[in-house]
């Protein structure tokens, strides 16, 4: 074997080893949910001596997994749909039209990106209260839909790299702006839409502050909130805590494995160059 080939194989092995190191914390988490306390203290990284699913059964029941999961799912799907639609629609004129006011609108929308959630937390709570949307999934979804400004920002960035020929051709053919957008432009946005969907799904799914503030009934809890509740509840029982965390991570892992090619490809294709 040539020296180069040896170096290449060594390099590949080194990278794979690094991958394993990076992922050890997740292995640690999963493997220890099957152990007894003594086992975990004795050998944190070893495989469990016997596999019991008792912890999982208890955690599953305690966190009302099915309901929390469906809550998270509904909230995420509807919110992200709105974010994508609103964001794409708003980006279209801002990116394509020449009027000066669109620059102002862009800056207007960007203002909110810099605002930390904590700043508007309390006024937002009062607002939802006035609108009678507290402890209501609709209220929470509307709040998430206001995150469309970041999606809009990404869309308008993408537009800059999109040649206008097809749109112009459609306009010449007599297509009005509405039709033009949905039939011609929006399909062209697919790469960035995929990226945006992936990021927004992750952000909304993982968000904990807003559900914590705006949802009070246990029945409307999201999955991530179960972790937060678990911290207080299982302050004396870390094995339940770890099992709860694993259960919360499973949907995320599945989503990731399915979408992983798109995620990396999406970013890699330069969709997020700003």
């Amino acid at each position, binding site marked *: 074997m040539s020296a180069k080939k040896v170096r290449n194989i060594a*390099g590949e092995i080194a*990278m*794979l080893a690094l*991958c394993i190191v*990076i992922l050890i*914390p*997740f292995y*640690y*988490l999963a493997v220890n949910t099957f152990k007894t306390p003594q086992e*975990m203290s*004795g050998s*944190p990284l070893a495989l469990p001596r016997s596999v019991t699913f008792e912890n999982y059964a208890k955690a599953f029941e305690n966190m009302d997994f099915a309901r929390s999961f469906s809550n998270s799912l509904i909230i995420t799907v509807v919110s992200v749909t709105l974010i994508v639609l*609103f964001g794409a*629609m*708003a980006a*279209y*004129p801002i990116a394509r039209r020449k*009027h000066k*006011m669109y620059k102002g*609108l862009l800056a207007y*929308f960007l*203002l*909110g*990106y*810099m*605002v*930390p*959630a*904590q*700043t508007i*937390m*309390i*006024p*937002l709570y009062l*607002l939802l209260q006035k609108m009678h949307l507290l402890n209501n999934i609709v209220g929470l979804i*509307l709040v998430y*839909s*206001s995150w*469309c*400004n970041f999606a809009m920002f990404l869309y308008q960035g993408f537009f800059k790299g999109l040649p206008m020929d097809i749109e112009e051709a459609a306009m010449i053919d007599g297509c*009005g*702006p509405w039709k033009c957008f949905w039939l011609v432009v929006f399909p062209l946005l697919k790469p960035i839409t995929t990226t945006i969907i992936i990021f927004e799904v992750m952000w909304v799914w*993982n*968000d*904990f*502050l807003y559900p914590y503030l705006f949802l009070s009934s246990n029945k409307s809890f999201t999955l*991530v909130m179960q*972790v937060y509740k678990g*911290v207080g509840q299982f302050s004396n029982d*870390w094995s339940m805590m*770890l099992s709860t965390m694993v259960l*919360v*991570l499973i949907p*995320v892992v599945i989503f*990731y494995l399915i979408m992983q090619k798109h995620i990396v490809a999406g*970013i*890699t294709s*330069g969709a997020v*160059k*700003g």
Partner: protein
Amino acid sequence: MKLKKELPYLCFILPAFLVYTVLMLYPMLQAVGLSFTDWKGVTFENLHFVGLKNYLDVFSDKQIIISITNTVVYAIAVPIAVTILAIPLSVALNSKMKTSNIQRAAFFFPSVPSALVLGFLWSYIMSPLDYGLLNRMVTGLGFDPVLWLADPKMAMVSVIVVTVWSQLGWHACIYLAQLQSVSEDLYEAARIDGANTLQLFFRITVPQLKPAMVTSVMLLMISSLKVFDLPFALTGGGPGYATTMISQVIIQRGFVDKMYGRSMAAAIVFFLFVAFITVIQQKAGAEKE
């Protein structure tokens, strides 16, 4: 006249404009308004206008100052650490290995779960008890156990380390995207001139990555300034106030101490700071292009 032509297009913006204005801008304005009052959170009846008092108090409030310092330190350290590590990593991930896709997926994964979950997970790994993985390794190598979360300075380091671990792969992919548009010819030409690998890296790769760097650093800096979930879950802001970030103090001053006026003032000061940084970065980024 010109405006009428834009009318159909403005309707495109309408839905986004509505939700954004009502649910983000309006509360923001209310926060600004409240920052000039002594609102105690119960009713709006005993509200008094106090001018700039809250803002002055912000700067004399020791915990707020500490938390601002902490947040700034964190927001500087994280982008630096991630950038230094992500660029070489992106080069490594760019090579045409058979397992490249798996590698990219593996490194990217830590940015996917909720920061809350990651924070709790690492609090077990860094625990001083026997199941604390890190100290097991450290003592196994013959060193003294480290107080990862109990020592004020180490606690901040730990928060930074966990953040870097989580964000590294994602940002390496941002650089990866940029790398793939770098022309091979540049490298060829340099190799012909006799440049070695290191020189190729520093003279060609790094400069070519500047646009990606601007994006990556901006994303990192802003998200670091806004951070809440991770330090909250990992250290709760402690020990003492060593890892308390501004976002946590805003909640503390508001909800727990009932000093909503001061809490809002701190939040506004903070927002102005973030805006300032963003503007500077945009300018710096624009120049470079």
